[in-house]
């Protein structure tokens, strides 16, 4: 050791030269000072570190060389110089945290020792050895910084970070761990990890896993994220995600555990999964529904096409043809019902169903519903009883169409599912609740208890085989239930399999205080079904039909013929206006969508012209706005296509009551003496006019011929001689066309017509 060497040999003169050379090779700085602190020797390393040369430091006071100032710049007096303390006997100085000054005024950290030199029992100065520890200090600083960083990361982490020692005890516990588990570091450190943070029931399992992990470093948990149950100080159990990484500390296997509370994430996941499952179920239900619907739509279509084709087959007997037609009608109606239901439901689903609240006559409603269902019930030999339970309000505020739709649906279901017995429709009222209740009771097959809950759900049917057997869309109850809600009430069901069902529909009836309450059926009651659709009255009057579609033309023509009506068909709005203005009609059936001019436009123009003939609009477009536009244009009523025959007949009967057609009005005019006078005048004038025409023809006086024909046409029309008017018109047209050679025919015809008129 150099220090020992110095200690023993350095001061002795003579043999020291070699030692001093050796010291020059030493990495540490060595400086010898005398009793006064004057440098007697400095080796190369010492001079180098201080930025001097050995010969320039020798002879100077050590204190001034190395301790001129403290690092902060303040001066230090010689009296307190720590190195000089070594000049006292038996004082060894060992200092590890000092700085020395270089010649250029910079500092460097040193570790030094100062040892008194004891030569021959008396103090002979001291030896100072030192080394530059800049690098070590740097490393220490970096290490401290790094540790601080790591500590901050761990402390600020959102995950609980634990370190677990080789015995399975907790050795590290960050603040998030405190937050998640509720234990302070003091409570947690040193405890077995499996006991502290896992629920009792899982402890043994985790303990075994931990033991295996600690023994061989792997229990299937390393570098994986595991989801386990954890528990904290509060006893609450919660899901965590845990990942473990091993590290070696003093040869032993330790672990870091990163633990994250995933309660929220887990519930979000569960919600998401639930939503996904629900969406999938709904989508599946809709697909099934669509598949079912397309089957339901195809079935009647197949029948319609098949029976339709059989009608064209020559070999089909008349009886079979009639059956075929009946089937076509039946299936067409069924198809229409399906489409209506789908549209209704989709409107309800989209919350776009329009309802109106107007005064509905309670008994009329019951009668109407009864009248419509009676035949259906009778066809199955069922009795339909409509029982008003008094008192009942005379009117209720509701949507009559929707209310009727609900009741018809419930009744038609009841009839469908009942083989024999009675169907009841009961109506009762709870005035204080402003509520009217309709109950439909049947003695049918009933509904199984487990099917009742989903009975009103869209897209789920009690049993698809039911639909197959009994027909219907399976949507009726869904629609009825939604409609009841829109009418401020609800639809409820009670049923016993094999015994029958009870459907109760409550609806909000509006304020009933001001409505008269009926306590019995009014005198001269309407009897349900007496005005049945089967008996269509014959109607009188002329009807103009404006309809562009040939099939619809044929259909309407057929209906009108059956009613014994007198009608003319035109195929667009322009012709409708011209025809309606030119001739007298008692009623106009006007299709809404037509080429040239729409029914709405034609109606408007007719009304502007002062034509007041009632107009019944016909449209396949059930949108309320369209119906209103039609009415605003001047149509009295708008009927929906496809035409519902009973409604069609009833409406026509309303507008064409027997005994008030325009023919009769004209007949009344014809009795007017004034009219008779004018008519006689015309008939007296006519022979002269015809004579004039013959003469004009003979003299080729075409202008006169044309004017006489024209006058004859107008007056003949006025007096109801339409054949004569037509003949005169033909003659006029022929003259106007310049076909003078062809005039004989029309003129002869005109003369014949004149004779007929005269005879009459």
């Amino acid at each position, binding site marked *: 050791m150099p220090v020992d060497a110095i200690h023993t040999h350095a001061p002795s003169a003579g043999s020291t030269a070699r030692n001093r050379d050796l010291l020059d090779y030493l990495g540490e700085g060595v400086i010898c000072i005398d009793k006064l602190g004057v440098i007697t020797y400095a080796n190369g390393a010492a001079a180098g570190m201080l930025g001097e040369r050995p010969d320039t430091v020798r002879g100077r006071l050590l204190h001034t060389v190395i301790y001129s100032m403290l690092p902060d710049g303040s001066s230090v007096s010689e009296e307190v110089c720590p190195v000089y303390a070594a000049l006292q006997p038996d004082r060894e100085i060992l200092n590890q945290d000092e700085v020395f000054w270089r010649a250029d005024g910079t500092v460097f950290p040193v570790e030094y020792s100062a040892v008194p030199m004891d030569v021959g029992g008396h103090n002979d100065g001291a030896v100072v050895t030192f080394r530059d520890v800049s690098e070590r200090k740097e490393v220490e600083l970096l290490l401290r910084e790094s540790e601080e960083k790591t500590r901050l990361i761990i402390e600020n982490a959102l995950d609980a970070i634990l370190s677990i020692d080789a015995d399975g005890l907790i050795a590290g516990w960050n603040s998030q761990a405190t937050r998640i588990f509720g234990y302070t570091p003091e409570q947690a450190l040193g405890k077995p990890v499996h006991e502290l943070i896992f629920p009792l029931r899982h402890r043994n399992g985790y303990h075994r896993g931990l033991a295996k992990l600690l023994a061989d470093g792997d229990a299937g948990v390393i570098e994986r994220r595991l989801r386990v149950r954890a528990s904290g100080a509060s006893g609450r159990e919660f899901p965590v995600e845990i990942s473990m990484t091993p590290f070696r500390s003093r040869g032993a296997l330790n672990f870091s555990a990163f633990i994250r509370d995933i309660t929220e994430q887990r519930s979000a996941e569960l919600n998401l999964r639930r939503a996904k499952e629900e969406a999938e179920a709904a989508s599946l239900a809709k697909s099934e529904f669509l598949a079912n619907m397309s089957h339901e739509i195809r079935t009647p279509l197949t029948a319609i096409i098949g029976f339709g084709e059989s009608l064209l087959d020559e070999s089909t007997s008349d009886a079979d043809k009639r059956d075929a037609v009946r089937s076509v009608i039946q299936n067409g109606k069924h198809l229409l019902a399906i489409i209506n239901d789908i549209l209704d439901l989709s409107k309800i689903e989209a919350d776009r169903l329009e309802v109106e609240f107007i005064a509905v006559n309670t008994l009329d409603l019951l009668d109407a519903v009864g009248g419509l269902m009676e035949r259906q019930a009778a066809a199955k030999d069922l009795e339909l009883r409509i029982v008003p339970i008094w008192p009942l309000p005379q009117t209720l505020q509701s949507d009559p169409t929707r209310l009727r739709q609900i009741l018809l649906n419930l009744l038609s279901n009841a009839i469908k599912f009942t083989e024999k017995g009675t169907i009841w429709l009961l109506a009762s009222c709870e005035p204080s609740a402003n509520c009217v209740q309709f109950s439909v009771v049947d003695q049918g097959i009933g509904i199984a208890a487990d099917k009742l809950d989903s009975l009103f759900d869209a897209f789920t049917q009690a049993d698809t085989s039911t639909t197959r057997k009994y027909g219907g869309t399976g949507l009726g109850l869904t629609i009825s239930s939604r409609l009841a809600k829109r009418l401020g009430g609800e639809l409820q069901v009670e049923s016993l399999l094999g015994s029958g069902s009870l459907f109760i529909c409550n609806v909000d009836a509006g304020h009933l205080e001001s409505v008269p309450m009926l306590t019995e059926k009014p005198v001269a009651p309407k009897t349900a079904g007496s005005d049945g659709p089967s008996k269509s009255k014959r109607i009188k009057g002329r009807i103009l039909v404006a309809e562009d579609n040939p099939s619809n033309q044929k259909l309407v023509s057929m209906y009108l013929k059956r009613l014994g009506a007198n009608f003319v068909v035109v195929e667009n709005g322009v012709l409708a*206006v011209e025809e309606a203005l030119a001739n*007298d009609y008692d009623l106009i059936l006007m299709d809404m969508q037509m080429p040239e*001019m729409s029914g709405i436009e034609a109606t408007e*123009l007719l009304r502007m*012209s002062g034509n007041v003939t009632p107009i019944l609009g016909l449209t396949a477009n059930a949108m309320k706005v369209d119906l209103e536009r039609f009415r605003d244009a001047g149509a009295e009523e708008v009927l929906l296509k496809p035409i519902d025959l009973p409604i069609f007949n009833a409406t026509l009967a309303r507008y064409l009551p027997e005994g008030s057609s325009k023919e009769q009005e*004209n007949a009344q005019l014809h009795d007017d003496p*004034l009219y008779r006078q004018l008519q006689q005048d015309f008939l007296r004038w006519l022979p002269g006019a015809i004579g004039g025409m013959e003469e004009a023809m003979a003299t080729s006086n075409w202008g006169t011929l044309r004017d006489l024909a024209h006058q004859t046409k107008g007056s003949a029309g006025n007096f109801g001689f339409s054949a004569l008017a037509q003949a005169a018109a033909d003659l006029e047209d022929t003259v106007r066309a310049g076909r003078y050679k062809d005039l004989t025919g029309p003129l002869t015809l005109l003369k014949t017509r004149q004779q007929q008129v005269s005879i009459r």
Partner: protein
Amino acid sequence: MKVQLTTAVLVAEDDSRQRDFFVGILRHLGFTHIDHAPNGQRALALFREHEYGLVFLDIEMPNLNGIEALHHMFEHRPETNIVMVSAHSTVDNVKTAIKEGAKGFIVKPYSIAKVEGVLKKVLGV
């Protein structure tokens, strides 16, 4: 419908038989004050002298046709109820008449129903 109608009516129609028939209908319906003219010129002259609640103008007339007469009459008394009459029921005719301000349009041959409809609309009877 048979009511005493006090409204003064003017009928312009060149065909005397048609005119007589039409006047007959108006009488039948209850009008008592009915003037008539065989052409537009004469109708306009009457119009300037009297105040009519209702005027029927045949479109096809010599010496000032119906539409021309209508223009002059509206210049004189724009609020007059004028109903056009024509043997031709083309929609274009009807549209033109309405556009010019006519309150109604009658297509010949005249009939009670046609006249009644127009009266309902124009006079509210």
